[in-house]
């Protein structure tokens, strides 16, 4: 059984390597990275996977770490040594962000305005490229780093941008708060991966889930994460699926219970809205607010609406707020419903069938 498992795993890894190579040749490096990380998760001594990661890992540091792993497995690997020498001399041109260096001549300020226009027009990728060029020329422009912080999807790049902002101005409280929040998110990889998923950053979500899987020891959680990775890999092959906006999502889900209660009130009022009492109207409002509260409460950690509504309190405080809001929402839905049904029951008791 053990031998068969190893052979099956080897066969799977070979297939993953084959797919990764095809993806690299087609230019889909992010997806190739995700596959290579799957291989190294199950076979940490796979020299080929580490060697390829030494070429296509996103961060310079990750490329160096991957090549160090190759040399730890096989000290005589010439290709790994040559690549490491290359990396030690130069930073790769594709590295998106880097730490600050000595001041250079100021960049064209109009580029910042142009980037803002591109962001407003929804052309985020172009804005990101423009801002990266700007940041390479003028690394001491905090506004550019703030814009990049909003644009770049990878949390590691966001952290670099915020660290640069704090280097320029250590007293920037907004940057400090945001940095603390992102560092907290990094420590909760499952919540971070869920956030990437919701934003449609499938490649990053898979990478984050794989990283979480490496440290996960609970079998049931491992099974759940593996299932999630498989689902996302299927989604990668179906790029048309776009996540629904959070506001629409909340409104949509809250409308269901509200429609149920609204229909009950309408029927209780003899299908005539003019017979609604103030009690009925208050009940509908209560159920509406309660439904919204319940939907928001059940949103995942770091959901944009949750952050917008409540900021970023410490974790324990956030849990208490969720419980309180959930309980309040539940009561705001349940109490009007119970009162309505009780009033219907009393009306039944008062009804005299002999008269009809």
């Amino acid at each position, binding site marked *: 059984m053990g031998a068969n498992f190893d052979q099956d795993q080897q066969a799977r890894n070979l297939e993953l390597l084959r797919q990764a190579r095809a993806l690299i040749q087609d230019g889909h490096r992010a997806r190739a990275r995700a596959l290579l990380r799957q291989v190294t998760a199950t076979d940490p001594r796979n020299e080929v996977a580490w060697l390829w990661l030494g070429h296509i890992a996103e961060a310079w540091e990750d490329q160096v770490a991957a090549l160090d792993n190759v040399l730890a497995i096989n000290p005589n690997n010439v290709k790994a040594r040559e690549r490491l020498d290359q990396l030690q001399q130069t930073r790769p041109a594709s590295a998106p962000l880097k730490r600050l260096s000595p001041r250079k001549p100021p960049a064209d300020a109009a580029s910042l305005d142009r980037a803002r226009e591109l962001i407003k027009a929804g052309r985020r990728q172009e804005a990101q490229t423009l801002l990266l060029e700007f940041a390479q020329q003028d690394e001491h422009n905090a506004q550019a780093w703030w814009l990049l912080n909003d644009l770049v999807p990878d949390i590691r790049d966001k952290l670099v941008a915020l660290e640069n902002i704090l280097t320029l101005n250590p007293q920037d409280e907004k940057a400090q708060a945001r940095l603390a929040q992102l560092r907290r998110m990094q420590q909760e990889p499952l919540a971070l991966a869920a956030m990437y998923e919701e934003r449609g950053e499938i490649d990053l979500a898979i990478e984050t889930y794989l990283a979480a899987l490496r440290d996960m020891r609970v079998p049931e959680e491992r099974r759940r994460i593996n299932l999630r990775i498989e689902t996302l890999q299927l989604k990668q092959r*179906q790029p*048309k*699926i*776009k*996540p*629904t906006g959070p506001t629409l*999502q909340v409104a*949509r*889900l809250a*409308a*269901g*219970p509200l*429609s*149920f209660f609204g*229909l*009950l*009130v*309408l*029927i*209780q*009022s*003899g*299908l005539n809205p003019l*017979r609604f009492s103030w009690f009925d109207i208050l009940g509908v409002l209560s159920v509406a607010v309660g439904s919204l509260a319940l939907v928001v409460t059940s949103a995942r950690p770091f959901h944009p609406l949750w952050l917008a509504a409540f900021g970023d309190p410490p974790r324990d405080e956030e849990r208490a707020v969720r419980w309180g809001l959930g309980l309040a929402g539940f009561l705001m839905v349940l109490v009007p419903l119970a009162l*309505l*049904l009780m009033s*219907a*029951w009393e*009306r*039944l008791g008062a*009804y005299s*069938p002999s008269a*009809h």
Partner: protein
Amino acid sequence: MFPLTDTEHNRYDDLPLMTLALIVVNIIVTAYELSLPGDEVMVLFNAFGSRPQLVLTMQGAGALASITHMFLHGGLMHLISNMWALWVFGCRVEDACGHWRFLIYYLVCGLIADTVSTLIRAESSIPGIGASGAIFGVMGAYLILYPGGRIRTFIMLWFVPMFPKIRAFWIILYFLAIQIVPAMMALRAQEDYGVNYWAHLGGFFSCLLIFLFLRPEAFARYWAGEPI
């Protein structure tokens, strides 16, 4: 044509808890009905069935009856046919919604079916009972979400029993079509037939509300044109 079972698999959750719970509750209520003597059953139906005349004059149980009428049935065949249809079509619709949202959707379809029936049969004091309106809502949702789903069906062709897999699209449209003509005839004749066709139609068209109850991922997949 009688649908026997859905041959497709759930995507999110294999256990249709709420569908099973609804079936169990309906069975328990019908078992209680069958244990009552005939005149007491009529008292039960009159109190907890949906009587249009009483609804419109704000008498009787009102909102309560609009929920309880869905769990009353006129006999074993009525119960079996409804619960079988609920099992065939409810499992995957529940999978697409999640347990609690499916329950609310089911009840909403029943309420809309009851409302349409009340408006059409406004003068009637005959109690409307049965889960058919809600179940037609579930069938409508299945048609929207899984039109290509294959249902194992029983049909008799020249006295030969056959069990082909037929696309849900055809089965559900067949059941919809056989409601329309009798519904029109009932409306024209202003008569109360034994079968409440207008409740079925009302429940069916309430399926448009399914989009308020779908899981976020199912909703995103639907709008991307991907299988749910």
